């Protein structure tokens, strides 16, 4: 994983780019991500990983790293984005615990 592994052509990257810029689209995504994912032509594997918030798999597919914590906020909200927030807990489960990295010191 890493920024060098980004696949700019991956539909998920375009979708996350647009969703953050457009509150109407964000609200549609929040209500039901499936039609939005269809609109952006995500593959079945991408759709499954997005819905499961499987960030490690999305990273392997080429989603830009910066979009991964943003995806947790699209699902869990952005307010109070501290280390114990639901969004960061989801991030921790999907990336940090899975990588076997320790040192969560905040």
């Amino acid at each position: 994983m890493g920024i060098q592994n980004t696949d700019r052509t991956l539909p998920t990257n375009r979708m996350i780019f647009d969703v953050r810029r457009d509150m109407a689209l964000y609200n549609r995504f929040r209500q039901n991500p499936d039609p939005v994912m269809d609109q952006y032509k995500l593959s079945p594997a991408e759709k499954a990983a997005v819905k499961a918030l499987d960030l490690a798999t999305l990273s392997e597919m080429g989603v830009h790293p910066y979009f991964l914590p943003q995806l947790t906020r699209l699902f869990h909200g952005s307010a109070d984005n501290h280390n114990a927030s639901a969004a960061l807990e989801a991030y921790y489960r999907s990336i940090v615990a899975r990588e076997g990295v320790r040192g969560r010191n905040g």
Partner: protein
Amino acid sequence: MAEIVGAIALSHAPGMTGWLDKAKPEVQRNLLEGYRKLGRIVRDAKPDVIVGLANDHILNLPVDNTPDFCVGTADVWRGPGDWFKDWLKVPDYTVKGNRELARTLVREADKRGIKFAFSETLQFDDNFSVPLYYLTPDYDIPLVPIHMNCVMPPLPSPRHCFETGRAIAEIIRDHRPASERVLIMGTGGLAHDPGGPRYFEVNPEFDRWFLDLLATGDSERIINECTIEKMVAAGDGGTTELLAWIAAMGAVGDKPARTICYEAPPELRCGMGAVVWHPA
């Protein structure tokens, strides 16, 4: 000729406004004092306009067509972007732009072989919202934002960023009114790893090394030693935002940077610092 009245750089991590209360009290105090001190430095320089360089965070520069630099040409800017309001917890703000200065940068850069994108519809997230909240809380100094591609490879090299910053300063000096006073501001960094396995960690060893390197004022050494690879190794998803600092340094050249404040709070998931280069 217009005057570059100084250059500054500072971190813009969202926790600085969104959840600073989670950091240790002495860390909060040091950062707030540092950012207020930098705000006084900005005000004392009496700039008519701030030219800001910051990572775009893949918010405006599309994934299918990603320029290295995009100059904001609007008369007025509003922030933060709608989706970022809950995250940043800063009030909605309006700050004037400077269309003529922005257009001059694009037009004259073209003649130098530097192709800037330009836009009137840039959204601001933490990149400008956090610095403006602390440095110019009245939002009374116009801003020409320049959004940079700091994280979508291939990245502009440190040398290209430095030379672009130098070109920006030269264009301002050569093509703007003699009475105009311009402050250059770079925002981003220090080491952090959003989207990576070390997102919850900080890297004070790298941060101190970088701040000490800037203090040498030796731009050639800084460009050669602070490579993309070294920044990526220090924190993959975000440390290359320091390209914006290197671009700001380009505006002042071989001047040592003085550190105003530095902390590495894990609660903010980012090394936080601010520097000022001696007036150009």
